[in-house]
């Protein structure tokens, strides 16, 4: 269900209200997001689609606390993140957000194991506990046998699996995926999408994903379209996701 009157469930995991984002380029102001509302419940899998420049990645950055809105609020699991200081926001990201990027963005000089371990270095977990978590995450993505491989020794699909393992290793509140299959062939893309579906269905993860690919978007529970900064359409709506925008 798509709503423009922010009538989502007040217990939603993600609540976005009146979100605006404006960039200044030269003397010109570019409004990327315009009064956007969004509610996402725990365990949902939402795809954002839209043409280039429509604000998909900007929305994802705002949801992940990587950027701050010009106006409006973003709340995740009861934390209102839009007014947090930079330091607090960094801590919040470490606890609540798992990022998956189009280009995988693994550290090339670290092995798969070391890449996946990175978010855990920020915790107080012991060495053995960290090892246990990393091995579990790599098993979930099917790369238990490749823990000592460097990114250059892995295929694109495998690199993205490592990136997904890095995103889930600290058991974040939700995953933000920015074109996770954008750099992969169809077969690898299918495998990655199957893995993300499995994370949602079997591990109860909440996933918000940006994609250009309708085939990939069709795997999500809900697809929301962003055009010129406004959420204009929702398809496959399940009752627990509402979205809207004030144009």
């Amino acid at each position: 269900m798509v709503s423009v009157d922010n009538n989502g469930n007040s217990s939603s995991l993600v609540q976005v209200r009146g979100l605006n984002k404006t960039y200044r380029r030269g003397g010109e102001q570019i409004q990327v997001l315009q009064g956007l509302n969004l509610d996402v419940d725990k365990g949902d899998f939402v795809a954002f689609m839209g043409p280039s420049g429509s604000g998909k990645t900007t929305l994802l950055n705002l949801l992940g606390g990587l950027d701050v809105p010009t106006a409006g609020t973003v709340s995740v699991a009861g934390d209102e993140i839009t007014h947090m200081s930079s330091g607090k926001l960094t801590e919040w990201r470490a606890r609540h957000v798992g990022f998956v990027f189009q280009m995988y963005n693994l550290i090339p000089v670290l092995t798969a194991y070391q890449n996946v371990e990175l978010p855990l270095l920020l915790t107080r977990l012991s060495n053995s506990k960290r090892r246990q978590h990393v091995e579990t995450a790599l098993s979930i993505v099917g790369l238990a046998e490749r823990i000592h491989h460097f990114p250059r020794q892995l295929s694109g699909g495998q690199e993205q699996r490592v990136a997904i393992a890095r995103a889930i290793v600290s058991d974040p509140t939700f995953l933000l995926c920015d074109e996770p299959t954008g750099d992969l062939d169809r077969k690898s893309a299918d495998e990655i999408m199957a893995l993300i579906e499995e994370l949602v269905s079997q591990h109860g993860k909440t996933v918000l994903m940006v994609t250009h690919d309708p085939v990939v978007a069709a795997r999500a529970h809900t697809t929301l379209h962003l055009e010129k900064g406004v959420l204009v359409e929702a398809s496959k709506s399940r009752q627990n996701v509402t979205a809207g925008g004030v144009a």
Partner: protein
Amino acid sequence: MKFSQLILANLFRKKVRLLLTLGCFAVALFLFAFLAVVKKAFIGGADLASANRLVTINRVSIIQPIPLSYRDKIARIPGVESVTHDNWFGGVYQDEKNFFPQFAIDPENQRKVFPELIVPEDQWNNFLKDRQGAIAGARTAKRFGWKIGDRIPIKTTIYGTNSAWEFVIDGIYHGKRPEDDETQFWFQWDYFEERVPERLKGLTGWYTVKLTSPDDALRVAKTIDAEFANSPYETKTETESAFAASWAKQFGNIEFLILTIGTVVFFTLLLVTGNTMAISVRERTGELAILKAIGFKDHSVLFFVLTEALAIALVGGLLGLALAILAIPALGAALNGLLPNLVLSKSMIAVGLGFALVVGAASGLLPGIGAMRLRVVDAMRRI
């Protein structure tokens, strides 16, 4: 430390670049140590000089003699504890390359005025009884393999005949401090006086005056020079450190030269390493952005960059200093004692390491601050 793997992995990311940067530090620190040692050898005499000693020379030049009769007059001046006189011999042992300083000394007062140069009592007593006796510095004795009782012929180049003067090694002196000059060769004044040409008898090269208190230095120096003013042998008296400094200045402004070279090396090193660190950080903009996205704080990123820079500086610096420790004795040997105090002291090593770390920190600071201020969104857009 749980971040060590990440820091090490980044350090070894480009091995050739790492080696070249380490090499850059090593060469710079080697050069620093080398210059510091040479500077110390040239002008370190001023640092080693005792605060309560004066040197009196002929006002015209040190190569002009002054009368021996001045000794008693100087000794009577209030504030003078003891006074001794020396004369440069300038002889050649076997070959001109075998340079070491030789002095005719006043055995009666030598040890009172220079207590830091130690001769065992029995050896000194033998020396006093031996007209041809000589005391050699430990380094010179070691250099030529001399032992007590050896007969040493030294050809004079200044005092008339071209024949060799024969000496007997009665003792070997050591300095109390590692920097003390252990290359000198002392022999009896009476033996010298007896063999020099008639016109030089009753004259000496210079006096060294030991004061009861360093506070009296200026007054005693003025009194000595006033005492002999308007005589055929006017004197110039200054503190031992001033004398050593003016002696070093005869070679040119070594300190300025070394400081200039050192400054050029410092800034070249800073620019090279700063540029290397900046390139290294710029190459990793995306990775640093990812680290920040997954929760690494700004100061953690600064810490990583600074730690890398400091690790390179420390390892490179230690390599350079280790090379210097190995090379400087060889250099000293190659110079045949021309520069007697080629010692790389602990303080020089500490200053060198400090210098390396300052350069390392300075070279890592700007790129580190840049990385710290990096906005994840901007960096991700650039990938």
